[in-house]
């Protein structure tokens, strides 16, 4: 059955793959990072198309910040961030190709072999989804999320504590 939803899924799925490919086909760090961002946004839109509103919006929000921060770190640490020297984004070509082919075959095989069950026709609305997600996080998956949450909070506090204060006055 071909529906608008399916067509959008195919379009944004292909967009995600195309932008993922662009990540390696450019020699500029910033273009590479923002291509990855575009790929992630396409995946976020896939969630939205599949009516998982919270996950879609969360994915789009988180990736915007994360990929931009990645861009600035790549700018800081690479010797040719602008790609003027035509540097490559990939290394060890033969091993990469082999790894890529094997992983693709494995993923396609898993997707074809898996029992996906029946396609859901009834699903809760966005508000109910948010509530159910909250219930999941605070009931069955509480341990996992609390561990991750507290770890991140500790990391945040630790990094603030060790951050050097910047002195404005010139001291001699």
């Amino acid at each position, binding site marked *: 059955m071909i529906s608008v939803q399916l067509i959008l899924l195919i379009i944004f799925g292909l967009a995600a793959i195309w932008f993922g490919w662009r990540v390696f086909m450019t020699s500029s760090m910033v*273009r590479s990072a*923002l291509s990855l961002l575009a790929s992630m946004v396409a995946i976020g839109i896939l969630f939205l198309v599949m009516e998982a*509103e*919270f996950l879609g919006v969360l994915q789009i*929000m988180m990736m*915007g910040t994360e990929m931009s921060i990645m861009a600035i770190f790549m700018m800081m640490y690479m010797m040719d961030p602008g790609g003027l020297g035509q540097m490559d984004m990939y290394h060890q070509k033969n091993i990469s190709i082999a790894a890529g082919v094997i992983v693709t075959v494995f993923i396609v095989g898993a997707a074809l072999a898996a029992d996906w069950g029946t396609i859901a026709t009834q699903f809760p609305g*966005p508000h109910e989804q*948010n509530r159910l997600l909250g219930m999941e996080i605070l009931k069955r998956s509480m341990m996992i999320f609390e561990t991750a949450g507290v770890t991140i909070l500790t990391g945040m506090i630790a990094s603030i504590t060790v951050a050097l204060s910047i002195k404005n006055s010139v001291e001699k």
Partner: protein
Amino acid sequence: MTPFLSGFMITLLFVGGVYFVAVLERCSMTGNVSWSGPARSFLLLFAQEEIKTRKHDKVFFETAPILFIGVILLTISILPFSRGSVVIDLGTGALFINAALVYIMVALLMAGWAVNGVYAMVGGWRALAQLIAYSMPVVMALTATVMRAESMFLTDIVESQQSLWNILYQPVGFILFYISALAIAFLPPFDLPVAEGELAGGVWADLTGARKLLFRLGRLALVLTLSVAVVVLYLGGWMGPWLPGFVWTFLKTLLVAASFFAVGHFIPRIRHDHLLEYNWKYGVPLALYNIFQVGVVLLL
């Protein structure tokens, strides 16, 4: 009032509001009220020659202004102007505001990188530094408003303020969101990405004609959008006696927009590294306190 008529009125008021913000912006910079000034600037940029810098990044150069104005239009579409007057009532509206506004920074970063100029690039990276500073307090302040409404629908958040506006219920959250809104719209005192005196316009230093026009218009719309967001989240949205809901929304919005420019007029610029330091050392703990306080009051 029929939905069509109220929709028309809201569009008209929004366009008028953008013009009013342009007049306010001029007034905050020059001290003179000039009603024809923004129209003259508009015509100037509209007719200006498009100059492209050497070796510019074509894709980013064309995408950045459209992305900038696109995310602002998306944000406007989810904000409720009165009961029932919302284009898309999203079940994750409160989160969506933040998600869309992150891409303001992405657009600035792209524009800064695209023109192949030093001032623009420094401006773009400053926009990112500011985002790292304000992103945590703003999302935590939003969380506290969602906690009270027990829903991420923006209409529910307005309804939850029936008895007491959020500005009084969670003043710490309001202050954090208000300051962050100034930083999101890169208004003074946080106008470092486009610092006129120092980077000669920063991100939009090398942009001319239609692209600059899109950025300038986008920023004015952004200021108004953020003012509406402040009104919806903290100032009771459309609530008020006698007048129709959307009139109250716009009255409050224009007041908030005017206060943005007044604050910017009197406070000196805050450097991005200072903003990072203040926000992470004081802003984040305050935002956590705000969530705790709202939680305690809700449980009492």
